[in-house]
């Protein structure tokens, strides 16, 4: 059984799943548009949650939020199921497939056999679509993969019931009935408003303040926890910013692509200018990643090097602050 589902590779797994599922259900919407409407652009530093022995940094909202926000802002409902029993989880999945309904699944990355070994970590907020079943094999559209792939029922069960932080518990989701009329303008406005509110939030670990806070920590880390751990923490930051599987992929550029698209729909040329500004900020993030990676590749011991990349991060924080203040003005 195979549903006629169009697989489109995307930069970020949840955007990709949402965009592909909505396309199937008759609503053509690009990955950047999904990301923008969902206020996907974000930053948070969570020092008290450790992932792979380093504090958590996130460039995106909590898994699941993207779809929820898009559904709310475009006016459709999402059906979600979570399970304790693995049998029930499979039954529900099979039943949906039998109804010709491709579904989104939240899965753990570690046991995804088609990922290169280097990318397999216990990260549980990856997303993919199941669009059919042939024999014992489920047909998988993993948005970060170039082509569709398959997983046996046993393999799929393993990733659906991965354990640890964000354990998916067999989480399956899909959109129900889409409305006849969709007000994109309104959805875009809401998405942008929430984005700048979050990025300008008066919370020390969120938004541009969060970036600034991390910069401050980078100056302190070498003395406090040693160069080795500092380098590992920086590595984590770079990986969260960019890595496949964790749903990375240059979030600032996806947001810039969204602003460009939004500028046309909203008939607001200012958004196109801001798209260009966001591209510059995205490039700054990439510069930062290059410097950080050089630092730990050469095992630099001089504290000055850490101060320099902290300076870079401070610049980014300032640029993002200015950017989101401008965005606020542009949307009024």
């Amino acid at each position, binding site marked *: 059984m195979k549903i006629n589902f169009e697989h489109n590779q995307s930069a970020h797994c949840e955007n990709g799943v949402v965009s592909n599922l909505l396309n199937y259900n008759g609503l053509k919407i690009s990955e950047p548009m999904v990301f923008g409407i969902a206020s996907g652009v974000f930053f948070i530093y969570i020092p008290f949650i450790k992932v792979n022995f380093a504090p958590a940094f996130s460039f995106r909202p909590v898994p699941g939020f993207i779809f929820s926000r898009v559904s709310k802002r475009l006016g459709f409902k999402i059906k979600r199921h979570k399970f304790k029993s693995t049998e029930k989880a499979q039954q529900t999945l099979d039943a949906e497939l039998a109804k010709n309904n491709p579904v989104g699944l939240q899965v753990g990355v570690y046991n995804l056999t088609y990922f290169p070994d280097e990318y397999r970590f216990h990260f549980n907020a990856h997303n993919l679509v199941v669009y059919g079943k042939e024999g014992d094999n489920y047909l998988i559209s993993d948005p970060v993969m170039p082509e569709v792939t398959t997983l046996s029922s046993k393999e799929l069960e393993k990733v659906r019931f991965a354990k640890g932080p964000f354990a998916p518990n067999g989480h399956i989701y899909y959109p129900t009935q889409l409305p006849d009329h969709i007000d994109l303008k309104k959805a875009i406005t809401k998405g942008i408003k929430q984005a700048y509110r979050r990025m300008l939030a008066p919370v020390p670990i969120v938004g541009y303040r969060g970036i600034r806070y991390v910069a401050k920590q980078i100056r302190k880390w070498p003395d406090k926890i040693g160069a080795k751990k500092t380098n*590992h923490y920086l590595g984590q930051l770079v990986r969260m910013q960019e890595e496949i599987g964790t749903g990375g992929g240059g979030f600032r550029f996806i947001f810039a692509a969204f602003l460009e698209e939004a500028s046309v729909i909203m008939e607001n040329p200012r958004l196109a200018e801001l798209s260009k500004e966001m591209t510059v900020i995205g490039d700054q993030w990439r510069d930062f990643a290059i410097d950080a990676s050089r630092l730990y590749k050469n095992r630099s011991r001089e504290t000055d090097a850490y101060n320099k990349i902290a300076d870079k991060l401070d610049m980014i924080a300032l640029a993002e602050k200015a950017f989101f203040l401008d965005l606020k003005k542009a949307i009024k």
Partner: protein
Amino acid sequence: MKKEEVPQDESSLSKANIKEIVYAVDKDGKYGKALSSGWEAKTIALNKSLELIEEQLQETIHKIKQGELSPIAYYMELNRMDVVVLSGYVGFWQWKVKRHLKAKIFKKLSEKTLKKYAEVFEVSLEELKNPKI
């Protein structure tokens, strides 16, 4: 990022013949999808983090040989887990898992408890007790 600047570096993805999508601007300044085979900065970060896991594993092996840590610590790290993840898989409280990492406590564990760990690590009881390290 400009399309012609999209990095095409060697990475573990390129070895597996996978390219990933990034968004970049073309000559007219318009955004679109572009394929990247990998990016050095990212590969370094990933490799360093794998190196750290390997170093930690070697340290753990040393501590097991010294009679300090139990083989559970070895298999946990071999599977890139930490106490939080392992506790999720075996279904014991974290403090209990932490206790089981100690060699002294490990010796007193019941067959039933050991079996749970062996199942999670996909090894036999014998392998669990005597890992090839």
